[in-house]
């Protein structure tokens, strides 16, 4: 079994790229791999708790809590979050806050890395 690090720069609502990241993470965990997720740019919106689930929009909160329970490590870029007005106390519990070197260190210790852009 290996370690997969996924970075996601796209916001959940408004893009299906973060949906893809979460589904891929779940599939990898179910096959016994270790998964790290780095959220940067608009991806940091995922760390905002109390998202309302509307039918027209993707919804992450439940999904993210499930990944955390299954052992995924999830970290968001503190600077990207703060610049968007998202502060630590608002984040979903269990999501780490750190800077880019956290991601680089996870890359060092990963067998595979996939970085998913925000555009």
């Amino acid at each position, binding site marked *: 079994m290996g370690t997969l690090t996924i970075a996601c720069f796209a916001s959940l609502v408004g893009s299906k790229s973060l949906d893809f990241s979460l589904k891929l993470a779940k*599939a990898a965990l*179910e096959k016994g791999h270790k998964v790290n997720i780095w959220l940067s740019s608009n991806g940091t919106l995922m760390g905002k708790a109390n998202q309302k689930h509307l039918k027209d929009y993707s919804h992450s909160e439940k999904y993210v809590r499930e990944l955390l329970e299954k052992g995924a490590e999830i970290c968001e870029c503190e600077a990207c979050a703060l610049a968007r007005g998202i502060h630590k106390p608002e984040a979903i519990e269990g999501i780490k806050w750190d800077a880019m070197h956290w991601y680089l260190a996870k890359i060092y210790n990963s067998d*595979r*890395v*996939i970085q998913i852009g925000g555009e």
Partner: protein
Amino acid sequence: MKLGVFVNDYKTVAETVSRLTAEKLGLIFIQNGVFHAAIKENGKSSSLLDKSANFYVLAEDLATRGLSDADVDSRVKIVNYGDVVDLIFNEYEQVVWI
């Protein structure tokens, strides 16, 4: 170099992907990249399928767009998320999203 490429869009990514080479190259069509696997423009399959590579397309992203297995070019293998995980770990060493 064993390179897996997630092709996630249709018209905007073709130039970048067409330049890629690797000893072993895999193109995994997801999101609007699935149109490369399922749409013939002016009767011609996507030029990406002429590359020397293995081709895969994510079943969910086909179905989401109203496309079916019958639409998919015979050179392309239809895969699910579990298959994608196996491709990443077993078939390719570097993986990029374009």
